[in-house]
């Protein structure tokens, strides 16, 4: 039962206005093709989350699709601060996003708890910080401090998260959705498995036999997946280990563009609204910057050693 479809179909069918969306990846395998499609389809009032957000989340906020953001961090890293994020919070442009702030320990643990079907999980961070003094749309349910019933000491509990939909970009998946990753995982496995449904964007669709040659690499099993979209170059300007490098040129192009509201809009007009899909996006990239630049991003191939699961 193939779940293969276009990104347009996947986002249109499975991401609804008002949904709570987990979006995996941080520079490594951000699902940029999906993010552009969400903006292109002008989704509204999304709640988004990930530990460590970057240019992709900044773009979603600037494009006005986000109402709420369960966050730990948003920065463009080497390119500087997230301009859309700042404009939203400092000036309400296009509107003020509501933030619920955690950390890169507590938020992944909350997604893990969601994936494991447990209602909350203890964590050891945030204590003594002002992060415990602020809360937003979670209100009293941002966290609870209880007495550890085993030893009487205080214990900080954070609630499980179960997004409506999780979106990840991986190296390979089969047509039913068994999704395989190598390299930095971030919070993709827990975040996707915490989600009620999962959209898998991948560099390449492979056969079920290829998945079965190395099943320890699968981070999401097919029964959790509702859509599989083959999107080569789908994480650009982020990277995918084994496929292509991070695109620093394009990253700073976005940073410069997003410095102003107008520049940001022009960027969207060119790279999001001005193309129909990832294929046109890649075509435009090659036409504008040259095939040499495109080719330069392509990864060298440094083979691992095969293993065997046989007996």
């Amino acid at each position, binding site marked *: 039962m193939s779940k293969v479809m276009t990104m347009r179909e996947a986002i249109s069918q499975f991401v609804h206005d008002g949904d709570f969306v987990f979006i995996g990846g941080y520079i490594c395998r951000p699902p940029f093709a999906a993010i552009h499609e969400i903006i292109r389809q002008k989704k509204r009032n999304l709640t988004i989350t990930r530990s460590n957000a970057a240019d992709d989340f900044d773009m979603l906020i600037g494009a006005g699709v986000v109402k709420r953001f369960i*966050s730990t961090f948003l920065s463009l890293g080497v390119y500087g601060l997230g301009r859309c994020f700042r404009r939203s919070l400092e000036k309400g442009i296009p509107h003020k996003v509501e933030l619920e702030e955690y950390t890169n*320990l507590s938020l992944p643990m909350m997604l893990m708890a969601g994936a494991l079907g447990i209602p909350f999980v203890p964590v050891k*961070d945030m204590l003594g910080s002002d992060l415990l003094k602020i809360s937003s749309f979670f209100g009293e349910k941002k966290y609870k401090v209880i007495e550890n019933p085993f030893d009487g000491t205080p214990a900080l509990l954070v609630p499980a998260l179960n997004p409506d939909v999780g979106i990840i970009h991986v190296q390979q998946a089969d047509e039913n959705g068994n999704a395989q990753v190598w390299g930095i995982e971030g919070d993709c496995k827990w975040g996707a498995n915490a989600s009620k449904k999962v959209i898998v964007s991948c560099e390449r669709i492979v056969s079920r036999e290829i998945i079965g040659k190395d099943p320890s690499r699968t981070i999401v099993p097919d029964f959790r997946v509702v859509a599989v979209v083959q999107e080569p170059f789908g994480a650009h300007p982020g990277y995918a280990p084994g496929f292509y490098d991070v695109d620093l040129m394009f990253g700073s192009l976005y940073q410069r563009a997003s410095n102003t509201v107008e520049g940001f809009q022009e960027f969207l007009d060119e790279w999001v609204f001005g193309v129909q899909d990832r294929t046109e996006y890649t075509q435009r990239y090659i036409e504008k910057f040259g095939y040499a630049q495109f080719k330069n991003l392509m990864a060298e191939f440094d083979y691992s050693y095969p293993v065997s699961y046989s007996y």
Partner: protein
Amino acid sequence: MTEITSEYIKPELMACCGAREIKDGDIVIVGTGFPAVSANIAKYTHAPNAKMMQESGVYDANPRRPALSVGDPCLNPGAAFIGSLVDVMGMFLQGGWVDVGFLSGSQVDKFGNINTTVIGDYINPKSRLPGSGGANPIGLLAKKVLIIALHDKRRLSDKVDFITTPGYIDGPGSRAKWGLPEDCGPEVIITNKAVMRFDKHTKEAYLESYHPGNTIEEIVENTPWDLKIADDVHETPPPTDEELRVIREIIDPMRMINIYLDRGYI
């Protein structure tokens, strides 16, 4: 082969100050920039068994270029372990296995509290910063925390606007009130002018050494709290030839460290 001269830039000195805080065998959680350079200097000089990890899920990477982020592609090939945020932040850091954490902040106060959330009011910010990321858990759970900051009255502060990452909070006894171990926490603030170490009793940062070319007076003037001065205050030892060789030949032959000059680390 680069010719080593005793001339150096401030970011190199600062990186060496960080390296000298790392002991052989330490497990160090690093971000990018200084921390990675510092930890690598230590590794290639006095601490060959020090090992690094990045919060994104990487342990003991073998990058052939300096990583530009904790998710940089160069961290992947050759690492000893690649997993998830929960693996590194939960299993290794929260599990109690990280000896040294590096942090920087837009605002750092005398008790080593760090603000990376907001300048001004939280609801109506003057300037919105990225947020905690991994800083808060690193600050609370690494056994020893090294803080990197620019030395001026905007970046250093008597009291930060927002405690993203607690140092000693309000001073002695504050960490214990939250059930945090007293023997962990910030060790030094390494600035572009000085090394300030935290007093074991008062938990306040005092001047331990001034960098070559910087004076005690200048440092006191640019520190917003009543800076105590160590009895044995001294000039920060400049980078050794060996440290400079490691930085320039092994860790950062492309001289990416120069970007810190533009950021005011002079």
